């Protein structure tokens, strides 16, 4: 559960899954044994299996509607067309939902990082009275399944007039006790010397947090940001509950709302799916290293 039990014997920065060139210890394999070829073939077969649904969705989205239900199954379209994409982009609010998703996920992520890192700084680096109790309550908050909250939370949103608003989607998702906990663990491990020196120089707590602690914490801030963004972007249940107006929906919710509207037009459904899947896939390809480290980090810290 805690970081300090992690079985590690190498420098901290190598805890990600990418080996830094030069730092990698010699691996135990000798090149080119028959076993390696078998291993390669098995892994490749599994990778193909894993990519197949994505490929199938992509190819379907590029078929003319009439070809999508052909029997026997055809993988590739005989005629490649973007008709389904045109129909989806022109005929639904995909663009608006994309904007809603980008906006709510970005604002949520910024707020989570700011609010949680401040709290983590307070918990890890100061000694105000009641600190331990509040930290314990926060950690207990991790145990509450968000699903248990949906009914009373919806009533609260009705009372606050936040149904069908961006803030209705965003605010409840800002509560991320697990992220606070991860950062508390990280901040506790930072050296004290710099902070003490700054203190002597008369720097305020805010300056210490902003100019010393945060810059030292980039890896954990990146992990928390990426995780919050992925989970907010993909969250279905809460936006589904709190938005009924198509104009306020996020992409995952909007997709389901119009699925009926597409009827059985599979090419269009798949085109919409591809559009919804693309942003995070692109982010992953661009930031693969950080995402992978983020997962590793979350795991080692426990939730």
């Amino acid at each position, binding site marked *: 559960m805690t970081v300090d039990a992690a079985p590690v014997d190498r420098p901290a920065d190598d805890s990600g899954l990418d080996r830094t060139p030069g730092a990698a210890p010699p691996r135990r394999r000798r090149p080119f044994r028959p076993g390696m070829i078998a291993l390669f073939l098995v892994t490749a077969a599994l990778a193909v299996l894993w990519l197949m649904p994505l490929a199938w969705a992509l190819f379907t989205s590029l078929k003319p509607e009439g070809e999508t239900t052909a029997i026997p199954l055809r993988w590739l379209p005989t005629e490649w067309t973007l008709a389904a994409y045109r129909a989806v982009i022109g005929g639904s609010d995909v663009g608006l939902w994309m904007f809603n998703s980008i906006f709510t996920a970005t604002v949520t992520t910024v707020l989570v990082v700011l609010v949680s890192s401040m709290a983590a700084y307070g918990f890890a680096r100061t000694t105000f009275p009641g600190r331990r109790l509040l930290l314990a309550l926060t950690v207990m908050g991790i145990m509450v399944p968000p699903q248990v909250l949906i009914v009373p939370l919806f009533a609260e949103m009705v009372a606050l007039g936040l149904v069908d608003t961006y803030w209705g989607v965003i605010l409840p998702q800002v509560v991320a006790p697990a992220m606070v906990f991860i950062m508390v663990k990280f901040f506790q491990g930072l050296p004290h010397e710099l902070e003490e020196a700054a203190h002597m120089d008369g720097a305020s707590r805010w300056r210490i947090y902003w100019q010393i602690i945060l810059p030292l914490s980039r890896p954990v801030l990146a992990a928390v940001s990426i995780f919050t963004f992925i989970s907010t972007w*993909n969250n279905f249940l809460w936006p589904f509950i709190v938005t009924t107006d198509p104009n306020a929906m996020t992409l995952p919710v909007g997709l389901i709302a119009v699925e009926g509207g597409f009827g059985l037009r599979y090419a269009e459904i798949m085109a919409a799916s591809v559009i919804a899947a693309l942003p995070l896939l692109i982010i992953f390809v661009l930031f693969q290293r950080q995402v992978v480290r983020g997962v590793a980090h979350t795991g080692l810290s426990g939730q």
Partner: protein
Amino acid sequence: MAVRSVARPSRRDTPASRPDGAPRRRHDWTGLLFVLPFLVFFVAFLVWPLLAGLGTATTSAGLSTSGEFVGLDNFIDALRDPDVWTSLGNTLWFTLLSTPILVLVGLVLALLVHQLTPARWFWRLSFFAPFLLPSSVVALIFVWIFQPDFGMADGMLAAIGLNPGIGWLSDPSMAMFSIVLTTTWWTVGFNFLLYLAALQSIPQHFYEAAAIDGAGDWRRLWSITLPLLGRTTGLVVVLQLLASLKVFDQIYLMTSGGPGTSTIPVIQYVYEIGFTNFRVGYASAISYLFFALVLVIALVQLRLFGNRKESDR
């Protein structure tokens, strides 16, 4: 990253905050100011709804009516409601089916990819990419794949000469397995990455020593790798159990709990009672029963896991 703190003694109290005693004491309250914004959110959107929900559970409240105090009636009704038991049973069944599969498949994939240095980014992308898809996209794709006759699943069976015509989502005895299959494809990447990270942090000299002693590949796997992954496995199992118990999205979107009630999870039942039948008080009571169940399982798990951690050190 997380590991960074390993090398250093981690202290709960930060001595740095009061190196010189009294003058610093006044500053202690600024710590509370840092925690305050989070506390506001925490109370407003977690503690308050949690307590309000408990209050609502003791009333006959509807979606817009507050209802009367009915004491524990809702809880008693819930315990007598066969649909509560069906949905709880489905949730537990899904958890029991999916957890071992997701842990094992994650482990196997990580072991395979860990051995292959070339193109590791590609293997990682292949197995992790589905985790990045929204549940609605996963549901749309797999409902399409599971279509009878022209879907990919049947098409592949036909291609290797097997009889298609499996009611992937329409046969009550098959639907849950199809959901588990979908869930495995979708989420195993997370466990896979946790295991991959753990594998890469196993000290190399263990293997070198074993090689000198003449241990073969299998021997090293059984005697070094798997035992050293024990702590990670504990973590993966805990996270997976909690995640599986919360199942809702893919089931709701793929089968709406059907056919019949064969796949309906407890969260969906709460949703239907609360937002379709407008019996908010009753819905709250059911969600608290579920919460109690999750809490018990989580506490048991954490206890087991905590002990494992101690004994490892």
